[in-house]
């Protein structure tokens, strides 16, 4: 039976020759991820499961302290410690504390913990990020994660796949983030619920690994179970630099069945902005900048856009300039490795010199946790992935989502700004 990429991976992990949409399977997992928020609840659940004293495989669990660290307060310190103590007790191989990790989804690929054809579940909705590497990866809640900790398997309903075919070459200042915002705007925030998104086409073939990460990361913003790319030479080179473990590169059959096929031409795509208060409220920058939209904060970072490539773009735009005096810019490199690379390339100095606050890696600002929380009436343009009411703090704040280039251009002017115009002005 012909199968999609997602179906191929699920079938192999369920020990079946074939699977079809709607089928319930028990699948073996290659990696289970949790952060201190999802782990705190999952560990409590695991303690209640009779006969579950040990995790199924201490090498196949990754625990990353990233949401409320460095601990925001005593309660945050308590849950961070809870996970750390569990990691020690269970002798977990891949435990990342502050200063050695960063944002989970940035860290895992860097550490070689994600490879093509693998099946990964995580206690974080942006676990779908690893689809960038040709893996099946999906987010779950803590009880499911506790079950995966002890069983090394999960029950899954095989999703229908939606095939997205991209064509055209991105124009000036158009990046993977713009392409994905356009995609979420096209599908809608429930447009891919219970579905797998399979990314195809010449545009995505040309994308860097980071670009694919940005796009896979936001599959959940259309409600998808997972978003997946085919692994190619770029993927294999990236993964082989980081791990010696064997992996199987799967490929969708040419006659695989898709629920829908959508063609997206990005030849004339402008930079895109998701306006408040949903990630699918997406508009081209020329439309958004018709009104003057002043901002109070610019945020650069997250599992969507906290990579070295992103910081290079921002540094190039801000180098030798000063950010608008009435706003603040907060930069969180995605991981310790990204931070160190940015330091080595002189990026951190350039950003700090322009007036940006450069923080330690973490998720805090993106979800209104700490280190960049918005107050009543404040407005932020951000490279993150969600802009729901209250997402970054006050329910009376507004969040606009855009690419690192659009955010950097806006940092110079203090209002939402077309990076193409900013580039022309500063050229």
């Amino acid at each position, binding site marked *: 039976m012909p199968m999609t990429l997602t179906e191929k991976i699920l079938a192999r992990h369920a020990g079946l020759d074939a699977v079809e949409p709607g089928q319930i399977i028990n699948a073996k997992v290659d990696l289970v991820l949790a952060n201190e928020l999802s782990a705190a*609840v999952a560990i409590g659940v695991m303690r209640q499961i009779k006969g579950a004293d040990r995790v199924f495989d201490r090498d196949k669990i990754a625990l990353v302290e990233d949401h409320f660290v460095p601990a925001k307060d005593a309660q945050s310190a308590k849950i961070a410690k809870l996970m750390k103590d569990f990691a020690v007790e269970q002798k977990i191989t891949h435990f990342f504390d502050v200063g050695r990790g960063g944002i989970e989804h940035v860290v895992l690929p860097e550490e070689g913990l994600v490879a093509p054809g693998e099946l990964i579940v995580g206690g974080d909705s942006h676990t779908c990020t690893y689809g960038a590497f040709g893996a099946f990866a999906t987010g779950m809640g803590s009880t*499911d994660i506790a079950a995966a900790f002890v069983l090394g398997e999960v029950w899954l309903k095989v999703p229908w796949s939606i095939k997205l075919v991209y064509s055209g070459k991105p124009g000036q200042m158009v990046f993977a983030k713009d392409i994905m915002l356009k995609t979420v705007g096209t599908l809608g925030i429930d447009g891919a*619920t219970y579905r797998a998104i399979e990314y195809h086409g010449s545009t995505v073939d040309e994308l860097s690994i980071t670009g694919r990460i940005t796009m896979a990361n936001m599959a959940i913003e259309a409600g998808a179970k997972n978003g997946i790319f085919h692994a190619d030479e770029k993927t294999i080179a990236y993964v082989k630099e980081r791990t010696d473990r064997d992996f199987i590169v799967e490929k969708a059959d040419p006659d695989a069945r898709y629920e829908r096929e959508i063609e997206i031409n990005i030849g004339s795509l402008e930079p895109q902005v998701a306006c408040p208060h949903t990630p699918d409220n997406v508009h081209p920058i020329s439309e958004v900048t018709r009104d003057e939209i002043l901002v109070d904060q610019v945020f650069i970072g997250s599992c969507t856009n906290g990579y070295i490539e992103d910081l290079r773009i921002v540094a190039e735009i801000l180098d030798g300039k000063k950010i608008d005096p009435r706003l603040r810019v907060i930069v969180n490199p995605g991981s310790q490795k990204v931070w160190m690379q940015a330091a080595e390339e002189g990026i951190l100095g350039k950003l700090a010199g322009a007036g940006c606050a450069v923080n330690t890696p973490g998720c805090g600002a993106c979800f*209104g946790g700490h280190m960049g*929380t918005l107050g009543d009436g404040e407005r932020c343009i951000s490279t993150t992935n969600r802009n729901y009411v209250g997402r970054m703090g006050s*329910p009376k704040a507004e969040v606009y989502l855009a690419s690192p280039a659009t955010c950097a251009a806006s940092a110079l002017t203090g209002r939402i700004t077309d990076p193409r115009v900013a580039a022309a002005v500063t050229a």
Partner: protein
Amino acid sequence: MQASLRGRAHKYGKNVDTDVIIPGKYCNIIDIAELGKHAMEGLDPEYTTKMNSGDFIVADSNFGCGSSREVAPIAIKGSGTSAVIAKSFARIFYRNALNIGLPIFESPEAVDAIENGDELEIEPAGGVIRNLTKNQTYTAAAFPPFMQSLIDAGGLQPYVERRLAEKA
């Protein structure tokens, strides 16, 4: 057999996301009662003061979209809300709600007919929703057989214990 649930409806729109169900700043809390005090705070700060134990959240499509935080259904349960009725649920929320034992019902018909404050009675087993204010009856979509077997077994935990025993 689960007992019937009874309470008043509190109506909300579509795409009620987990950030408004339990804002991120509370996600470092583990205590169920404490989480319950902040249920729906991002959307309706009055919710926990105006609702009575046993009441229902009635919402349009895609309830629980966004993050995977299990504290979202836990907070709703902790507030004393007895169930959520929606036209549809986001995928992760759906799994989480069933895993922690928060009853959820999919019924576009019920959502369209029920008005804020209506008194409802639900028989969870058959998915029968009675509107006592309007004297109407609606039916919720049946759970897929696998989900129903998980519910009947008492949630994911007994299922995991059984699988562990099988593997031993």
